[in-house]
């Protein structure tokens, strides 16, 4: 009893003492726990050496937790963060509401024109940058060249999903620990829905029609979901319903996947011999099409933005300029090699011979990012912006609920028809409630 009290007292005292004065500007940065962000965190010293008057406080959180924290904070003007890591989904919604401070002091040598046009337009409003892209990605297919060779498969043109299914059948060999294809199955608007929506786009589906009515009861979605459930359910790994990006990355790196369609950023991980057992046996090609190739690959970027009302906008912009600059890419290259720099944001990177040499996936990445267009991503006209999402506040909830239904269809606890029907009715309810019609 006594020693517990003693510990308690010490703890309180220690807690009081640590309130020391700090003349520096302290920036609190909320970020997601992805590899590239963690690398940035490790390079803090380079920034503080250049800006001794600024100190950095990192808050690294898992994606869902991060999103709920920063959204609550910015919407209530809580003022907890000076720099937020946000996706291309949030930027247009938030900047329209005036929640993000314009990035107008990034410095003369920042070279805004060097940012990839598709990404730049996704994070700008009326030509003004509201967030700076840290890394950007599209989706593509990674496959095992050795397995393709052994099965006598060569890729000439862009694949269709039907052809992909055939290949998956040929490669599927669970007895030897190889599954035909790995795809995202974990429910979430940023997880399975990102992939399934691009599949839907390829089959000519759209999330909403021009009247904002959902179209999950149409034949296009049925074709897309049937293909998804067939290919991943029958020729995918066990436990596919809990596999997100990270889980699939582990599977692919340990040689368990014949094909994997996912974010282009995965390319640098799967071809890194330190992490991947199949580093020298990976090929890259575009994501499959079906009825169309429009919108068959997504577009996403993690960006750094500043909430309006922050007292430290100036310092925060200095930090953002540092983290998203060309020099930062060189800094990472000098410490970790060119293959590990955050990809997809700057045109100059893809003209850099050193990068092209170190990154065999550079061309395919560039091709995928260039071909993704958030405005025209469906065969039929649509009212929303975004390839694999709709940039409306309601989508986060809708995407997650629908993602859960599709994950239930994949797991077999619900039929494809039932999943689509309940996706339709729940989305309809939400849109109605939000006052779209």
């Amino acid at each position, binding site marked *: 009893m006594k020693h517990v009290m003693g510990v308690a007292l010490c703890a309180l005292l220690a807690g009081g003492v640590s309130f020391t004065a700090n003349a520096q500007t302290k920036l609190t940065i909320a970020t997601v726990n992805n590899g590239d962000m963690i690398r940035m965190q490790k390079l803090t010293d380079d920034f503080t050496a250049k800006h001794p008057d600024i100190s950095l406080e990192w808050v690294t959180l898992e994606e869902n937790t991060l999103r709920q924290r920063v*959204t609550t904070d910015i919407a*209530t003007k809580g003022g907890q963060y000076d720099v937020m890591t946000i996706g291309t989904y949030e930027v247009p919604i938030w900047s329209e509401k005036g929640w993000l401070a314009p990035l107008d002091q990034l410095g003369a040598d920042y070279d805004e024109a060097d940012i990839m046009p598709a990404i730049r337009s996704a994070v700008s409003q009326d030509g003004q940058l509201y967030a700076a892209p840290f890394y950007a990605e599209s989706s593509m297919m990674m496959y095992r060249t050795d397995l393709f060779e052994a099965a006598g498969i060569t890729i000439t043109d862009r694949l269709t999903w039907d052809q992909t299914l055939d290949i998956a059948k040929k490669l599927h060999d669970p007895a030897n620990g190889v599954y035909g294809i790995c795809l995202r199955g*974990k429910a979430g608007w940023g997880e399975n829905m990102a992939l399934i929506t691009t599949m839907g786009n390829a089959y000519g589906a759209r999330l909403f029609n021009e009247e904002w009515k959902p179209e999950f009861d149409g034949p296009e979605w049925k074709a897309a979901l049937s293909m998804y459930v067939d290919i991943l359910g029958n020729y995918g790994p*066990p*436990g596919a319903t809990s596999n997100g990006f990270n889980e699939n990355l582990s599977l692919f790196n340990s040689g368990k996947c014949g094909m994997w369609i996912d974010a282009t950023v995965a390319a640098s991980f799967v071809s890194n011999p330190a992490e991947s057992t199949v580093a020298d046996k990976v090929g890259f090609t575009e994501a499959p099409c079906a009825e169309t190739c429009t919108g068959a690959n997504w577009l996403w970027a993690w960006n750094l933005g500043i909430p309006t009302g922050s007292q430290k906008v100036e310092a925060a912009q200095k930090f953002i300029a540092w983290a998203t600059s060309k020099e930062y890419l060189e800094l990472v290259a000098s410490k970790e090699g060119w293959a590990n720099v955050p990809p997809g944001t700057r045109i100059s990177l893809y003209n850099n011979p050193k990068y092209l040499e170190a990154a065999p996936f550079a061309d395919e990445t560039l091709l995928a990012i260039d071909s993704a267009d958030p405005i025209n991503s469906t065969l039929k006209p649509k009212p929303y912006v975004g390839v694999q999402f709709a940039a409306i506040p309601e989508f986060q909830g809708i995407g997650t609920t629908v*993602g859960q239904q599709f994950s239930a269809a994949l797991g077999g606890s619900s039929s494809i028809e039932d999943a689509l029907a309940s996706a339709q009715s729940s989305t309809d309810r939400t849109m109605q409630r939000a006052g779209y019609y």
Partner: protein
Amino acid sequence: MSTRSSTLTGRIMAAPSIIILFLWMIVPLGMTIYFSFLRYNLLMPGMEEWTGLDNYYFFLTDPAFFASLANTLLLVGSVLIITVVGGILLGLMLDQAIFGRGILRLLIIAPFFIMPTVNALVWKNLLMHPVSGMFAWIATSFGLQPIDWFSEAPLTAIIIMVAWQWLPFAVLILLTALQSLDRDQREAAQMDGAGPISIFFYITLPHLGRAITVVILIETIFLLTVFAEIFVTTGGGPGLATTNIAFLVYTQALLQYDIGGASAGGIVAVILANIVAIFLVRLIGKNLDR
């Protein structure tokens, strides 16, 4: 002895806690009730408007509501049964003379100290993972197909995790109760030729009545709001298979940012909790006032 003055002092002493708890409850509750009548989306500030009972209507007619109500009851009920039965058995076991009983008891109570988040992460990744988890290995070494827990039996998986966490609590309370059992009574029964089973049912179990009530009461309070385990592992799915009321309110509040709807959901949850509380009061009235 001056009853009146001591009652007065009693009231004065009890007052601070009651007042502060009352404020803690009434301020957010008042705000929540107010919000529950508004159309209030956190992402659309300035658009708040009075909508009457709309939020309640939407929450209660949501097909997810009944699914999550059923899941909540199933989760609470199953965990209670597992922990009470398991707690009695383990309590009886630990009541015997065992080599190294002190250390064994430490091992058995350990799960109680584990953070729910860590509990869920460990079970999900290290034990129940269908490819590299321990259970998958055990299944394959017996020549069985590994169970894909979070898609084939998601609610069962959650129940196992939560029960594991709360079993030690039941063991601790029931063991203390068992140790207070009058040995003479048991020995007298043995003299009369009663077997261990009838001793258990006629002497031990009635003696444990109060302890079981306490376990049920305290655990119910915590189990009604189980959240971290679901958030970390299944995210309420697949479909609605593991969405309980707490998680449903979460999806309203922090995925749809529909504060009006979430507030209505919160109020509904409070009403449901109070129904459970009334039920518990009856149970306690019977068992604790003896």
